[in-house]
């Protein structure tokens, strides 16, 4: 976890962090750790839970920013985002998975441990390298935020990049869908850092859009499961060239 160690080191040396900055960084790193956790989840149910936990962390951060920077809009956003990403989306996903027997039912389908294109260790190593790249590249751009330390921004970009790695190395539709959703979480984190004042109505539009996307992902996962009798994407190779 060199990227994360570097994150904390950087945060403590570059600018002596206030309690807020420290707390924000801890939460941001927590989001990144949750992202890494998704690489090794073996059960579908846990994958969805991890996503819910990650989303909850972001809502907490939104509340922290709202309280310390006096941005009342963010309370609403935090509540909405908690309701949607920590409660509704996981429920929708799990109901759908239960519908196709991937939770409960046949234990063969609960298990996505075998969906790795690489071994977990190599995948995590690659993810660390990618995360470090994102972390330092964005730091070099020198974007400063009025509300949160720039370290949180770098971490959020790392989350986005790691989400891409996740989508690439895990070959099952659930992890890929969760990969996309956590990518969106990374973007939300970025938005909290650099665009805390984004008008609420636009944030709500984004969230609503996410909900629609989740429903569509769910439908397509169903279609895929109906055709392929599995959640694996390893068979999706007929269209080439």
């Amino acid at each position, binding site marked *: 976890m060199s990227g994360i160690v570097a994150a904390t080191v950087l945060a403590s040396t570059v600018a002596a962090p206030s309690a807020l900055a420290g707390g924000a960084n801890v939460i941001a790193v927590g989001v990144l750790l949750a992202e890494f956790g998704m690489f090794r989840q073996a059960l579908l149910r846990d994958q969805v839970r991890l996503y819910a936990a990650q989303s909850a962390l972001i809502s907490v951060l939104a509340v922290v920013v709202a309280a310390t920077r006096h941005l009342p809009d963010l309370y609403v956003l935090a509540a909405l985002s908690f309701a949607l990403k920590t409660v509704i989306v996981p429920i929708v996903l799990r109901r759908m998975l239960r519908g196709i027997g991937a939770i409960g039912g046949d234990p063969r389908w609960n298990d996505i441990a075998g969906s790795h294109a690489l071994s977990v260790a190599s995948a995590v190593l690659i993810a660390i390298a990618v995360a470090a790249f994102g972390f330092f590249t964005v730091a070099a751009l020198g974007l400063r*935020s009025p509300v949160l330390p720039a370290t949180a921004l770098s971490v959020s970009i790392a989350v986005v990049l790691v989400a891409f790695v996740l989508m690439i190395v895990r070959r099952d539709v659930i992890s890929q869908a969760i990969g996309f959703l956590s990518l969106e979480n990374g973007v939300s984190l970025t938005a909290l850092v650099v665009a805390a004042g984004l008008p609420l109505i636009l944030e709500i539009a984004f969230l609503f859009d996410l909900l629609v*996307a989740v429903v569509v992902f769910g439908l397509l996962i169903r279609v*895929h499961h109906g055709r392929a009798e599995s959640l694996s994407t390893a068979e999706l190779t007929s269209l080439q060239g």
Partner: protein
Amino acid sequence: MLLLLALPLAAALVCVRAPLSVARTVTALSGAASFAFVLVLLPAAAHHDIDYLRVLRVDALSVVFMLATGFLYAAVAVYSIGYLSGEAADDSSIRRTRRLWAGLNLFAWAMLAAPMTSNLALLWVAIEVTTVVSALLVAIENTDGAAEAAWKYVLLASAGLGLALLATIFAYYAGARVLGQSYDLGFTQLLAVAARLPHGAIQLSFVLAVLGFGTKMGLVPVHTWLPDAHSEAPTPVSALLSGSLLAISFYAILRFYQVAQAALGPTFPRNVLLVFGVASLVLSMLYLFGQRDVKRLLAYSSVEHMGILAIGVSFGAPAALAGVLLHVLGHAAAKGNAFMGAGVLVRKLGTKQISAIRGGLDLLPWSGPLFLLAVFALGAMPPFGLFRSEFEIVAGGLRSGSYVAAAVLIIAVTTAFLGLAASVTRMMMLPLPRPRAVAADRVPVAASSLVEGHEAGEPKPASAATGPLTTRVATASLTSALTRGEPSAWMVVPVAAGAVALLWLGLHPPAVLDELFTRAVALLGGGAS
């Protein structure tokens, strides 16, 4: 304007419930009406920007893309009447057909809404809506291929749009540095203060936008979903995807380009677009050779044309920019035509394999020649609109001193045309292999299995190469099922209209378009270099 937004949405709602005959009438009317509304907006937008309720805004640039979408929406709505008339009447197909009608309207609605928004955030939302709606439309045929294509499409496009969302957020960040924390990402606001925007954030934002929206536009190397989705979707959806969705994504890039150019000067954004454009053009040109599926062939041709658009903008000369805008219109008409023509061929012969499609000109008295014309138009043959637009782009490139890029453009476009034309002329001109009566007499087995094959109703032309006997049987059962004639007049009329539009754009574009382009080119900073 509000009517234009409400109409397709209302049509979609009607289609969810109404019987099929109502659904298709409503869709066709809504398509025609939307196109008419865009035409009404056209002269107004050529003279002044139209603001509405703060969230809606139409200027010369957006109306060009609305015109392309409106035209294709109308054409596809009419075409679908013919395309869907052959569907079986059982419950599940009726449900599927109804969904397709509703989806088409919703898809068109989102694509018309995207250029009408006044700020980057709503633009992103509208484009994400197009993704989810069109992903469902791609999956609608419920085959293995369609499920695979839809999954790849929704995952790649959503991930790309995740990047585009980051781009939007960084654009907000840049704007908020100057304008304060609460502004709503309006283009005009951003442009007004462009000179003072922080450079790092705008650079990041522009590159992310090109990568993110470029995924939807089909720029190499993030184009990989495109041929799958275009080839597996129902034909009306393919036509809309290719002719107008790609253009709408390009529109989003242009908005970011406007901001980036105003903030950073022209060099950086143009270089970014040049790299992506050349990559798309060259790679798709190579892929055009050796395609076996007619719809994939056309899909790669779309990638090629998106590359041309990106290169055209990177030239930056006013002539090139006007060419790009004309190219958007021409490509919508030509690619829509080509997909619709290919759809007729596929319907007639029951296969998408290029090697199995023969004798198109003999079999289809109208669609055949029209398809051929559409492909020639795509290859920028005079006198069609795309010839004029590519000519302007190249001329603009030479004038702005980008000799190498212009030369690459000419060579690649010509080679691509060769690849496209080789496959298509083979499909259209070569006669369908006819069974010889003598041969059938000499091989009674073949004759009897011919009847069986025909009754089974599944002639497998793809297996034609396996052996002489099966060849004869397969082709025999094919030709016996095929007589000269069109599957449906509904599938000819919109293609003919498209061909007329292409000719019109090529020979004598109306004066109002010229005014429109001049104004839009000014928006894009033509001549600023």
